[in-house]
């Protein structure tokens, strides 16, 4: 045991390996565009930037705390019931998020409705528990959560900025092109908001376009079939 300690000196907190845990999910291993996880929430809540940000924050709390807890417990969990244990962890964290949102951001909680509860089934979370936290120490697990949430949030914000501007004519709830009903600003010369962009299928197009651009820039990401 003492030998091991000599051989492997304590890893610095932000070693190159740990940094990669944060940066990789941003682009080359993005949870949405490369692993294609967590799509359901990306389609449902990206109609406004505010919703996307609150969703990202919620996922960050659940994934960050969950990854650390699962990582701490990883040697205690019998592998046959690990999924159930992971579910219990996620479920309790999601309930905390849900209650906090309801108490402090009631409007937002209403808009996000079931999708806060559905964080439980967000594949990114269970995926990271299984793929990373079960086999790594708490600190790298936390960094992994940070990286994946930022990667997830990046796509969410990108899609929602586009959808909110061109679908509702707003950004952060501020009207950009004038009053839609009164017909001022751009609306007076015949501009109209695109209703299709508000519909969930368009988010699929938006995510698809991001995937397309990303793979056109970096051809090594294209899977062979």
């Amino acid at each position, binding site marked *: 045991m003492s030998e091991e300690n000599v051989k492997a000196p304590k890893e610095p907190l932000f070693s190159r390996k740990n940094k990669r845990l944060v940066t990789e999910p941003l682009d080359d291993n993005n949870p949405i565009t490369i692993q294609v996880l967590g799509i359901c929430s990306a389609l449902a809540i990206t109609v406004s930037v505010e919703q996307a940000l609150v969703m990202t924050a919620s996922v960050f709390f659940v994934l960050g705390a969950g990854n650390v807890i699962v990582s701490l417990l990883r040697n205690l969990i019998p592998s046959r019931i690990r999924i159930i244990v992971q579910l219990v962890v996620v479920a309790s964290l999601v309930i905390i998020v849900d209650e906090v949102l309801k108490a402090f951001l009631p409007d937002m909680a209403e808009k996000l409705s079931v999708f806060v509860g559905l964080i439980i089934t967000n594949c990114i979370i269970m995926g990271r528990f299984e793929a990373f936290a079960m086999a790594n120490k708490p600190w790298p697990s936390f960094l992994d959560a940070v990286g994946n949430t930022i990667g997830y949030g990046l796509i969410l914000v990108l899609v929602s900025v586009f959808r909110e501007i061109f679908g509702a004519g707003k950004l952060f709830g501020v009207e950009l092109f004038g009053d839609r009903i009164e017909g001022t600003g751009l609306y007076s010369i*015949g501009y*109209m908001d*695109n*209703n*299709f*962009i508000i*519909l969930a299928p368009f988010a699929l*197009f938006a995510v*698809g*376009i991001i995937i*397309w651009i990303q793979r056109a820039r970096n051809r090594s990401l294209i899977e062979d079939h």
Partner: protein
Amino acid sequence: MKSIEKMMRKLEPEHDGKWAKFHPVWDGFYTFLFTPGETTRNGSHIRDGIDLKRTMFMVVTALIPCLLFGIYNTGHFHYVATGETTEYMDMFGDKVIYGLIKVLPLVIVSYAVGLGVEFIFCIKNQHAIQEGFLVSGMLIPLIIPADTPLWMVAIATIFAVVLGKEVFGGTGMNVVNIALTARAFLFFGYPTMMSGDRVWFSGAPDGYSGPTQLGELASFTGKQVDWAYPNIEAFSEHWSIMESFIGMIPGSVGETSTIAIILGAALLLYTGIASWKIMISFVLGGLFVGVLCNQFAVNEFMELAPLHHMVIGGFAFGAVFMITDPVTAAQTSTGKFIYGFLGGALSITVRVFNGAYPEGVMMAILFMNVMAPLIDHYVIGANIKRRKKRLKVKELKAA
């Protein structure tokens, strides 16, 4: 011709020169003007004299009657809305001029934007320019109301060409019909400009409302107080089948006149470009559901004569120019019958049973486009099974 050829040859970009990137564009124009002199070097191939360019041109020619009638129709209903005339032949010149002013910009914008996107992708990927858009560019203005703002047409065209075609690899690789993709984009994006009772009379004064027959028919699925007519007989009296057949009804630019569409259909069938199997089975599918509705009618709409269904809305146009698109249709012979029949049946089903969408042709054709490979898959599977069985019988006899 010699001088044009010489000029084109002089303009050809050198393969290592600074304009080399634009070789596809030059090639596109050159082959547009002259038949390319290249021949196959290896093996023997049987070639038809008609290539993709001529095929596409034939379809555009088939669309011309619809376009011309659409121009007149747009003008006619403008003057009907302003209350200046209701007679067909009155002010014929004025109607044509008004129609030209309204419809030509739609055609120009659709072509300019679509070809622009196509050229950009061809230059970027160094592909030869394919002529697939020649037809789509003509179809798009024909299936939208004449009053659609030009910028909407431009956005929809970009959307359709990029996400309907270029992502899948360009001409001939698309899964869904390009023109219908553009229309679907407009339909869901700007519903107030694409449906309702205020868009069908071009340049109508404020407050003037005139729904299409489909709009009025859709009211039959609602409460009785909202009905446009007391019953279906009154409706059929007001809109005769003959009137709709000739095309003197409000609607999208090119789809109102069944006669003009039949002229186009004749050319397409004579040249063998469109599949008669799909066309016939599409109409049969529509008639079948129409008759079924009559038999089991529970509301006024379901009692509409099946023939009336054929001449209103986009049904005829869809049957001739949309569902027959060879790229997106089923490829097997049996598959074509199934594909067409289901498409027609679905069109009328959506029309009759879904009050939210008065016209179902667009949705039905897009849906069948996606289903076409599945149909082919099972048709081919059945064929293989049948032949295997035959083989087994032979083996048994031999033994």
